[in-house]
């Protein structure tokens, strides 16, 4: 017990890492997750919310058709006013104020009417996209789709003037195709706040546990400490059990802190969720925490320095978190990167977070959850075994050296 207490006291001396990596980073994540989740909070569990593209229309024509387009865009998309200057357009696109800019050239309205009557090629508008091509394309299609309707209205009724053409195009554009939303089980509305926050903290937990537990365990590997502990009545296995126990307590504290914040700030989002769904997420996070704990143990067996623990914790923690899909959605990753991600514990933990709320039918989830949790446990066990093997190899080597020294004497 005294070793256990000493280990905790040793860890408390490096509490600055706990404060920086865990407390500060987990608090940083609160506004981030809450703000990003607010954007989708109004999506019901079984609904589809139309994406509203933001469009700037630069009207250099001033005709009834170009004004009609501006009026149409203001109804179907978010119309953003941008001055007809290079800098203003660049600024709107660079700052992501708009998804796309549509420039209607001078004389466009008359050219469109003439082309429609003559059956020749219609004039073109100029478009520029922002950083997201798909939302830019949507913005552009809002404009060109309506202009094409106006041109077709003019072709169908050659006697109609621009105002009549605009009126018919506007009338036709009210039509909407039928939509159905599949009855696949959706994530319960708002639970993303909870799972998103847990996913954000994968890095914080990884680096905190590797550095704090690794530092504490490394101190017990110093020659002075080993000599002192060797002279005590406790066996090596008792000492090791106490040190590992202290590491487990530190891991539980880190996990408990993040879980408490997630439950505290995501409590409102969890209404309607089954208790076992929440428990499953927290269990996967705990099993994930066992991986850095095992890594801290393995690194301490290698007598890793403070800098080494920091470097390994940060680099592996970031790699695991990025590839997990919790920070950047997996849909944006190449298939080869997704395959690579399976080699990181974050992937399996995030898979539980992503799928836990997709269905309330435990039976449908059991197989997938068992695989995910089993993989997390496997990562922890394999890493710990590597550490134990390293430790054993060092013991054998030092015993061999001692024997050789005795024989030489």
């Amino acid at each position, binding site marked *: 017990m005294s070793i256990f207490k000493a280990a905790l006291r040793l860890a408390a001396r490096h509490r600055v890492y706990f404060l920086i990596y865990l407390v500060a980073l987990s608090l*940083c994540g609160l506004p981030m997750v809450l703000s990003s989740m607010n954007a989708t909070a109004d999506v019901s569990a079984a609904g589809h919310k139309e994406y509203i593209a933001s469009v700037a229309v630069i009207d250099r024509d001033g005709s009834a058709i170009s004004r009609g387009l501006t009026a149409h865009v203001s109804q179907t998309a978010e119309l953003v006013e941008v001055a007809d200057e290079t800098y203003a357009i660049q600024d709107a696109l660079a700052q992501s104020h708009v998804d796309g*800019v549509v420039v209607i050239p001078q004389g466009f309205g008359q050219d469109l009417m003439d082309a429609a009557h003559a059956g020749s090629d219609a004039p073109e508008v100029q478009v520029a996209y922002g950083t997201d091509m798909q939302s830019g*394309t949507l913005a552009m299609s809002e404009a060109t789709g309506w202009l094409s309707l106006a041109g077709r209205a003019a072709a*169908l*009724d050659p006697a109609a003037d621009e105002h009549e053409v605009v009126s018919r195009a506007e009338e036709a554009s009210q039509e909407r195709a039928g*939509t159905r939303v599949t009855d696949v089980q959706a994530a319960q509305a708002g639970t993303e706040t909870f799972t998103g926050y847990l996913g954000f903290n994968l890095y914080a937990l990884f680096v905190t546990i590797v550095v704090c537990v690794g530092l504490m365990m490394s101190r017990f590997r110093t020659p002075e400490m080993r000599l002192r502990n060797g002279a005590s009545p406790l066996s090596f296995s008792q000492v090791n059990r106490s040190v590992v126990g202290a590491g487990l307590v530190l891991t539980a504290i880190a996990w408990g802190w993040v879980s408490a914040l997630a439950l505290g700030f995501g409590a409102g989002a969890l209404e309607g969720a089954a208790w076992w769904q929440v428990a499953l997420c927290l269990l996967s996070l705990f099993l994930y925490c066992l991986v850095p704990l095992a890594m801290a143990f393995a690194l301490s067996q290698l007598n890793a320095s403070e800098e080494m623990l920091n470097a390994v914790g940060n680099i592996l923690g970031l790699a695991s978190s990025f590839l997990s899909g919790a920070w950047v959605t997996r*849909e944006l990753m190449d298939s080869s990167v997704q395959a690579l991600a399976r080699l990181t514990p974050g992937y399996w933990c995030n898979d539980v977070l992503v799928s836990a709320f997709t269905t309330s039918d435990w039976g449908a989830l059991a197989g997938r959850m068992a695989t995910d949790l089993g993989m997390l446990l496997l990562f922890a066990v394999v890493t710990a075994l590597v550490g134990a093997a390293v430790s054993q190899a060092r013991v054998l080597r030092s015993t061999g050296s001692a024997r050789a020294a005795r024989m030489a004497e």
Partner: protein
Amino acid sequence: MWTTFITTVKSLFRTPSVLIWCIVFPLALPTLFMVMFSGLGNDGTLDPVPVAVIEDQSWRDSGFSQVIEALDGEDGDRLLQVTYVDDEEAGRALIEDGSVAGMYTIDSELMPVVTMPPDNYAGSSGMRSLRGTILQRVADSYLQNYRLIESSFEENPQVFTNPGTISEALGVSVGAERFSATRSLPDETVRYYYVLLAMVALMAGTQNALVSLCWLQPSVSVLGARRMVAGTSRIRQLMGVILGSWVVSVFCSYLSFGYLCLVVGIDFAGREGLCLAGLAVATLASTALGALVGALPLKGGADVRSGALLALVLGLCVIAGMVGTGSMELSDALAQAWPPEAWLNPARLIADLFYSLYYYDSLSPFGLRLLACAAMAGALFAASAVFLRRQRYEHL
């Protein structure tokens, strides 16, 4: 002063924490980004929206099938990527496993119906919403043209005595000529790398200045106490330390910049020279920040200050958009809600230095941010000078 400068440079390069945080970490992180973004199209072409289509008799009879075939073309403007399935069950299976964003079916009136998953079905709700809306707009457009022709026929049936009228009308299609409004093609991934570069400049500048300043202060390190009794004046030592740590920081930042340019292949819009100048000034500002934290009369040694600075830098980078899409959205939301944040958060300010070179033809946005960095450096150096001047070492 020059001896102090050379000693500072040598000592910093021999410090393991400096090597890890200023050289190893900045090279490891872009490598990770490079792997992660390898599948993200950044060549200015559109990623087509995957959609399932039930290829039954209704589909073949409907005119909508021709529209979809045209949009599933092979050229660079391909909007849809169609997967033909035999029945609705197969289409639903594709939706559920995330292979497609939705499914088109044809109803009894030969009109298209869009089927899609809920927005918050596993994955990114924003992307689902966008893709679903694109599929919906394609079907809407077909229906709107159909209604236009129908209403024209009701109003003036004589127009349709000429059988070519409808095909001629449908042939009127307003195209879009794409122009590049910005200096370089918009690419969502470069912003992550620019924040990363900002993190390198901040990490290198703050850590190096802090460590070397702690070596100078008698109340923080034993080395500082020894140096205090040296014959060299305090201001000369301080100048040498600041200059030395800045040079090392600039070297580390340039190393990371070279890696981004040559290995990762990040586009800096052909303005690499200006980027280097910007990086030098940015590093000066971060050196000043490190110097200020090093000069503050805080309890605790270099480790505590270094840890606090590390947390500060990481926190600033998180709200500048470094860690994923959520972080980037927060950064944009913050800048829109309170614009001064983009000028006061050094991570965002430095990232915007490169961003303004990438997007704007004019150099004035870059110049303004460069001036802001220089002003920040001046203010922080002045503040650190005040703290250093007022320190007394009674116990010496």
